[in-house]
């Protein structure tokens, strides 16, 4: 029993290696971010932080930092998707704010 407990404690103390992204994952993440940003751009609603993250993702990709590229591209994509949601919602919602 003591041995099992010891083994369990040892297992817990071993850091579980984080998944490291590779080049193709970074490429795919950037492609997804670009697509989302283009959709936001077509609606005339690019968000500055999304643009900044996409730029950072591309820079990280160029320097071979795949993890950073995936993280930044994911952030850019999520922000761009929120921008698209905002624009779609505002297509009609803006009328509620009009002074009458």
């Amino acid at each position: 029993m003591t041995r099992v407990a010891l083994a369990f404690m040892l297992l817990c103390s071993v850091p579980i290696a984080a998944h490291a992204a590779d080049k193709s994952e970074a490429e795919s993440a950037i492609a997804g971010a670009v697509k989302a940003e283009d959709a936001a751009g077509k609606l005339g609603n690019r968000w500055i932080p999304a643009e900044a993250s996409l730029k950072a993702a591309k820079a990280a990709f160029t320097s071979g930092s795949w993890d950073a590229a995936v993280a930044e591209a994911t952030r850019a994509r999520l922000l761009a998707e929120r921008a698209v949601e905002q624009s779609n919602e505002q297509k009609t919602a803006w009328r509620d704010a009009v002074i009458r």
Partner: protein
Amino acid sequence: MPNRRIRARASLRVAVLAAAVAVLGGAAPAPDKTDPLADQKAFQASFGERFPQVPFADFANGPYAVSAPMRKQWEDIMQFPPYDFALDEGKTAFETPFANGKSYADCFANKGIGVRQDFPYFDTKTGEVATLDGTINRCREANGEKPLPYQVGLMASITAYMAETSRDKPFDIKIPDDPRARAAYEDGKEYFYTRRGQLNFSCASCHVGAAGQRLRGDILAPAIGILAAFPIYRSDWGSMGTIDRRFTSCSAQMRSEPLPPQDKSYRDLEYFLSYMSNGVPISGPGTRP
């Protein structure tokens, strides 16, 4: 048998009536009809009710109309207006002939003196809104000169001079009976009220909903008359700036990627805002914190 026919006809009538009701009013709510004059009356009345102590013409002075401490500071600053250098530069540039011998005066009604209040206008030839700044550059290009950058520099100086010659003249923006003009007005109205950017703000969020309130160190100017003082010397910029500079910096403050200067949306926005401000006197060039 006849009873059955009557019943069938009655059912048919009910079905047709129900369909008509659904098409005419029962389905999605109909979009607002464009009525710029009604919009303008409601807009101006709203600010009048909100700031009953502010004389209508004083809305030309932006935040100074609604904040006594800021007004006091402004009055002190105006002992030596920071836009004076730009005015001098603009007057000289305006009066200096182009290489072909013509000048800006040849491109404007009344030789460009006292015309600021008529801009922007809807140009029925191009089918688009024409701003003062855009007309200055069209004038330059028509006379073989390079266009000026839209946000700073000589453009701000020339428009400062032209505004100064128009002081106290009330905005007199017209929307011609042309569906394209109505569409431009509607586009500007939509842009003004639409939330955008990461902060989920619209122009109206600050300049209608929170007008007169503080946003960090600033007092937010009411939307009515907000363009009357342009171009402005802004302490935050440390230099003069045009309406395009303000629109792009507002967009950036909302964390929304700004549009290019003189983009159609910005021109339509200027058209809408200026029309809402009809009657407010030109006070430009101005100074802002």
